[in-house]
């Protein structure tokens, strides 16, 4: 038997955990596997795959947590992976030895639908009746023994949060792996069986052999099955054959498009008759009372806005101390390493200015990512996220998306990377792509330093704190205001997305488990840190090289000579005076930057930005910030001879910007940073695709050509925005 080998040490038994969404699967998974879990991707798709080691009395098994689904009728990527894994069609992943099907004890019949479909895949099964405590509180009486007998598989009552349940589940898994039992599938009426046979007979050679009846039923019954994509069967003949098979079902007196749920539920109702009984009336649901308050027609949106405000406030302020700590750690590391490498200035610059500075500047956002994911997990696990989608759906429906796009876009306000990762729950691939394309337009936390610097230097002193905070709010709103009409255009003309339906179950409210939330934070943190070590590191080195080389020593000599001539001091006098020595050092840094490849590029490219009022220095800043927009601050610091160690609240940088004048051209002597230029820069940064990490994740999720498209359209949009700002601003005087 295959089962004895499956339990041997070199190939642990594969156990798949399935069930409807929001049922407590992941809670049980975390309880069963604890620290022995890992997250990866299924080959070729970006659905995250959670696998953990399940210790059994003898040996171990591999537990796979599959995405929640109501049925094998797959419309989203997440759902499709469930069918593919269970039918053994995922490369490198053998067909599971056992399926653990978790169902809601308070709604047995509706939840058994999925189990009954899986039964046709002929995999041994265990049924878990989760929320057993709640079912009893509701006065439900479920005769476990009769249910076990009628289903033909072990039925275990459980509470996913309780340790005792975990023991019972492990025990059942262990026993069933040794003596496997399969759930009794439905007896289809003659017409369905005949249609299935006909469809199989029509299949091209090589296709029919690999498919089970359950998979053929997907083609037969589902209005648009994602399964069709994986078959080597051309669309036209497939459609004709499916039509023919459906006519057979029709001739048997069934509507082929409604036959499956009607027949399955009839079968399940008979199967569970007198097994599930309710004592008295269904008690009032407490979720309904909470909803009456939280999703209220009048103040539901106000509560929603207040919750979002708290989330944003926490992301900005709650992460502060940890960000300061990382900044401090980065600075200390630089101070510690720099003297060790002082004999080799180039290596010193590479390690200190590029590697530590670049990766550190990225890692500084880790606390924000963690805080954001804490709230996303909290809102999802309590059940509020589905309500948020319910409240916001209307805002997205007119532009062709649905409420599910809300979470990814909200997340993108902290960082587009986790936001784009969060699009995996969107069913339609085109709607998912559309959301990925606009997610980077949301004003992420890396844009904040740019706004703070420029508003602090130019808006607040002149117009007061009210206009300043209004400007800050407007900058955050701009991306969304541009994104919605844009996604309408994308959907209508580019992607030709079908209007997105919106059907979403409102899960019961419940108190989340802290460990579940901690796991979510950990997973997102690990994924983020991994990127810092790879993509960000590589890009940082490239930009550093462009800013550093050719680094001819003649630059230093010439600048020193000029400095001596201007100051009227000898070199010794300058070196003796600390301030003068620092000023000379900064002048040299600035000259090196001007002579670097990036500096020369800035001068070459500047004419393109002239119509936005940018001088070559701003242009260098813009170019240097393409890998990571927050780089603009330190680059401007270098350009204005302040050294790299400046931040957005640095008064010397603000003063330097205020004092900056044109050195050449028609505007010579006039201030560079006028209000239209400042607004132009902010609009440019709000709309531009200046984030290597985001482009890398778009490439991973949607492919190279969409990453290129995203970069191109956002950059063009940003340029247009900056030019419009400058030109209109000048017209208005």
């Amino acid at each position: 038997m295959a089962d004895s080998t499956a339990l041997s040490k070199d190939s642990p038994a594969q156990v798949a955990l399935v069930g409807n969404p929001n049922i407590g699967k992941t809670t049980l998974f975390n309880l069963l596997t604890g620290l022995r879990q890992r997250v990866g991707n299924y080959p070729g798709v970006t659905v995250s795959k959670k696998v953990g080691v399940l210790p059994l009395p003898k040996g171990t098994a591999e537990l796979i947590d599959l995405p929640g689904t109501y049925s094998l009728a797959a419309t989203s990527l997440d759902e499709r992976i469930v069918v593919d894994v269970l039918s053994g069609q995922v490369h490198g992943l053998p067909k599971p030895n056992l399926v653990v099907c978790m169902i809601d004890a308070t709604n047995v019949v509706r939840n058994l639908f999925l189990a009954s479909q899986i039964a046709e895949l002929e995999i041994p099964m265990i049924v878990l009746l989760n929320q057993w405590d709640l079912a009893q509180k509701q006065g439900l009486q479920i005769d476990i023994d009769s249910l076990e007998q009628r289903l033909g598989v072990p039925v275990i009552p459980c509470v996913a949060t309780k340790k005792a349940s975990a023991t019972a589940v492990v025990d059942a898994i262990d026993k069933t792996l040794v003596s496997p039992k399969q759930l009794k599938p439905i007896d289809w009426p003659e017409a369905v069986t005949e249609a299935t046979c006909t469809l199989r007979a029509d299949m091209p050679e090589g296709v029919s052999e690999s498919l089970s009846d359950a998979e053929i039923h997907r083609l037969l019954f589902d209005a648009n099955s994602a399964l069709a994509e994986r078959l080597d069967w051309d669309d036209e003949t497939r459609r004709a054959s499916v039509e023919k098979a459906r006519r057979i079902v029709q001739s048997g007196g069934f509507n082929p498009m409604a036959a499956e749920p009607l027949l399955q539920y009839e079968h399940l109702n008979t199967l569970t008759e007198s097994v599930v009984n309710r004592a008295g009336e269904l008690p009032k649901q407490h979720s309904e009372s909470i909803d009456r308050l939280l999703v209220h027609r009048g103040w539901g949106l106000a509560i929603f806005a207040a919750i979002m405000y708290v989330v944003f406030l926490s992301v900005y302020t709650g992460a502060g101390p940890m960000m300061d700590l990382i900044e401090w750690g980065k600075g200390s590391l630089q101070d510690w390493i720099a003297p060790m490498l002082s004999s080799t200035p180039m290596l010193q610059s590479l390690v200190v200015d590029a590697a530590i500075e670049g990766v550190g500047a990225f890692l500084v956002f880790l606390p924000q990512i963690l805080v954001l994911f804490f709230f996303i997990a909290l809102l999802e696990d309590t059940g509020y996220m589905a309500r948020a989608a319910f409240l916001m759906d209307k805002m997205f429906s007119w532009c062709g998306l649905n409420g599910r796009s809300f979470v990814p876009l909200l997340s993108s306000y902290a960082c587009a990377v986790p936001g784009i990762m969060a699009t995996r729950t969107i069913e339609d691939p085109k709607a998912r792509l559309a959301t990925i394309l606009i997610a980077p337009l949301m004003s992420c936390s890396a844009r904040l330093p740019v706004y703070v610097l420029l508003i602090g230097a130019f808006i607040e002193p002149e117009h007061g704190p009210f206009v300043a905070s209004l400007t800050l709010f407007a900058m955050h709103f701009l991306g969304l205001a541009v994104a919605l009409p844009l996604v309408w255009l994308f959907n209508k003309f580019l992607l030709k997305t079908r209007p997105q339906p919106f059907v979403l179950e409102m899960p019961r409210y419940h108190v989340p488990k802290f460990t579940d939330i901690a796991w979510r934070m950990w997973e997102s943190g690990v994924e983020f840190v991994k990127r810092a070590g790879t993509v960000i590191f590589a890009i940082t080195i490239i930009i550093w090289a462009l800013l550093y080389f050719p680094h001819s020593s003649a630059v230093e000599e010439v600048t020193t000579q000029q400095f001596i001539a201007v100051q009227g001091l000898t070199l010794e006098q300058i070196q003796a005076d600390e301030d003068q020595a620092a000023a000379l050092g900064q002048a040299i840094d600035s000259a090196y930057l001007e002579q670097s490849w990036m500096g020369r590029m800035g001068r070459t490219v500047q004419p393109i930005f002239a119509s936005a009022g940018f001088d070559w220095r701003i242009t260098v800043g813009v170019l240097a910030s393409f890998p990571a927009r927050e780089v603009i601050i330190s680059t401007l610091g270098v350009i204005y001879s302040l050294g790299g160690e400046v931040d957005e609240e640095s008064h010397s940088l603000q003063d330097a910007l205020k004092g900056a004048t044109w050195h050449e051209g028609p505007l010579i002597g006039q201030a560079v940073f006028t209000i239209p230029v400042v607004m132009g820069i902010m609009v440019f940064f709000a709309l531009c695709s200046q984030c290597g990490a985001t482009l890398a994740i778009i490439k991973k999720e949607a492919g190279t050509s969409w990453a290129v498209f995203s970069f191109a359209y956002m950059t063009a949009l940003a340029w247009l925005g900056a030019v419009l700002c400058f030109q209109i601003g000048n017209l208005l005087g």
Partner: protein
Amino acid sequence: MDATLSTLPIGQAARVKAYDQCNATDQRLMVMGLIPGVEVRKIRVAPLGDPIAVEFDGRCVSLRRTEANSVRLESA
């Protein structure tokens, strides 16, 4: 013209009679248990007027008016 889930007043219940098209969205609703013969109650409308939330078999599901339009009802 039959009554549909979209026109059902808030707080009222009715029985599902049939679906207009049986497209993928209708199929999803049926899989969730909203099959002909089941009693369904409209519990609320979103603040912006769409979508709506309905309850059947102890399940609360939200859907848009356009989708609710294809669910035809008869009085419970």
